[in-house]
């Protein structure tokens, strides 16, 4: 029995997580749509993530540029530094930075907010008044994290690429022309699409996981703290796993440029 319950616990949790995700998707289409809440949440998530995202993406772009630059130098393919580092930033680094910030800053705040409302019985009160908390609170939050993730991904890509360019050209004495030429030789538009698509999916997952943990804290203020902690960790695990799957699928179905 103990083995069965030990197995059933996580299964039940993931089942309920999926159920919440499905309900959220369904409730998106139910009127009245909570425009005000969406705008407020969007603004909130954006305001806590923009600055850290920009600040993280500069060194990240630089690190990739330096690393790739020194590798290509050893291989004697220095002229391809630009293309390689840009691809790495747009396809991998940028969605992951977005994921970390959306989950760590936005998701944690959402989870803490919903969690404290749950233990204060605010959500029960809402249900009692015949208002669905999923439709009223979760949907606007999940849409806000998705939207912010997509837009933030654009910002991080641009800042990351600029950072890489700066470090490659100014510090490693690469030529600007080679940087740009290799970029257009290797990169293609679908690379950007997959980056944005990843950001969209990551935003959805981060929003749903934060909402799920926030709606089900285990008793009292400490429970809310634990829930926030777990929501961030669970989101990270899910996002890195999803990133692997999406990358593998993308590399299989989209042929590299010039191949």
């Amino acid at each position, binding site marked *: 029995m103990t083995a069965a319950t030990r197995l059933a616990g996580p299964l039940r949790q993931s089942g309920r997580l999926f159920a919440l995700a499905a309900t959220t998707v369904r409730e998106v289409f139910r009127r009245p749509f909570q425009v005000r809440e969406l705008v407020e949440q969007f603004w909130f998530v954006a305001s806590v993530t923009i600055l850290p995202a920009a600040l993280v993406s500069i060194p990240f772009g630089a690190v990739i540029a330096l690393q790739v630059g020194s590798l290509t130098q050893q291989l004697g393919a220095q002229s391809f530094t630009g293309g390689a580092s840009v691809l790495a930033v747009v396809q991998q680094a940028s969605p992951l930075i977005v994921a970390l910030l959306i989950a760590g800053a936005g998701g944690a705040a959402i989870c803490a907010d919903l969690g404290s*409302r749950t233990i204060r*019985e*605010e959500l*029960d*009160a809402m*249900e*009692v*008044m*015949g*208002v669905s908390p999923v439709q009223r609170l979760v949907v606007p939050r999940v849409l806000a994290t998705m939207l912010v993730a997509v837009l933030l991904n654009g910002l991080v890509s641009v800042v990351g690429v600029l950072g890489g360019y700066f470090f490659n050209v100014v510090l490693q004495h690469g030529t600007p022309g080679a940087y740009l030429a290799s970029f257009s030789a290797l990169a293609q538009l679908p690379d950007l699409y997959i980056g944005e698509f990843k950001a969209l999916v990551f935003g959805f997952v981060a929003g749903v996981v934060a909402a799920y943990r926030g709606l089900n804290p285990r008793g009292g203020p400490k429970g809310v703290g634990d829930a926030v902690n777990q929501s961030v960790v669970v989101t990270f695990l899910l996002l890195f796993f999803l990133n692997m799957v999406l990358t593998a699928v993308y590399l299989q179905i989209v042929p590299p440029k010039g191949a």
Partner: protein
Amino acid sequence: MGIEVIVEGLTKSFGRQTVWQDVSLTLPPGEVSVLLGPSGTGKTVFLKSVIGLLKPERGRVLVNGVDMVNSPERDIYEVRKLFGLMFQDGALFGSMSLFDNIAFPLREHTRTKETKIRRIVMERMEMVGLLGAERKLPGEISGGMRKRAGLARALVLDPQIVLCDEPDSGLDPVRTSYLSQLLIDLNAQTDATMLIVTHNLDIAATVPDNMGMLFRRGLVAFGPREVLLTSEEPVVRQFLTGRREGPIGMSEEKDEATLAGELRYGAQLSGPPGPLPAQLEPSPGLPARSAVRRRQARVRELWDELPAPARAALGAAAAPGPGERA
């Protein structure tokens, strides 16, 4: 007229711990009922089960033909609009002002104009004595005020079933009496079915038409108020007199040995109940409660099953005439 709430064979447990089992009772339409019970006997859990927030393992709760335990969420959400639930600590939305809190159900479920919303909300706030505090946030007011605001919010849609979770906790005795009167007046005006969960003896003695008590994972009794107020049941007597002697201990219940010891030393388990306190009447100027008449008819039908002290307390006036007796 209010709506009947039928509870049948309800059993709820958290993990291996049973909160109560096989609870069956009927809240008569339009009447005021009180559910008593020592702390920790699952009174709040019972309220939340009635409204479908918690799902008991067995049994059902029928409101307007909808089973609040097993029906699909959609139906339950519809029926909940008939309810007004006053939470123990108000459960106000922390980010909204009192005004917005109380206006919330109106804005969600009706297409009322803002001017009319304002009028209704102010009327309710005056009723619970909160005029002037409408711009305050729930974090800025006292617990008693939060509670009254919670009541105002529960009443704003003119619910047909009102559930109150410990309306007295956090209120001073004067405000508690006002609140008792408010509930009776409300019942006279709207004829809503009411269930009040409390362990306040004043409310229990003066407000309800019917009383029930939860103890030891079950419903001890439920019936017209006279039945419980005159009951010889040790648990009920101990609770209503607030003594230490009896089956209720500090931690839920006493063990058999302590109880036997008390009996040996001649501790009196049940004193003879004095004359019953009168039930509250609606304030002057309000219509009489139509529940009173319906309850009289019901009591007459039950007459032969009622215990003798309850019959005496009800008085000769309530007794059915010779012709009416079946």
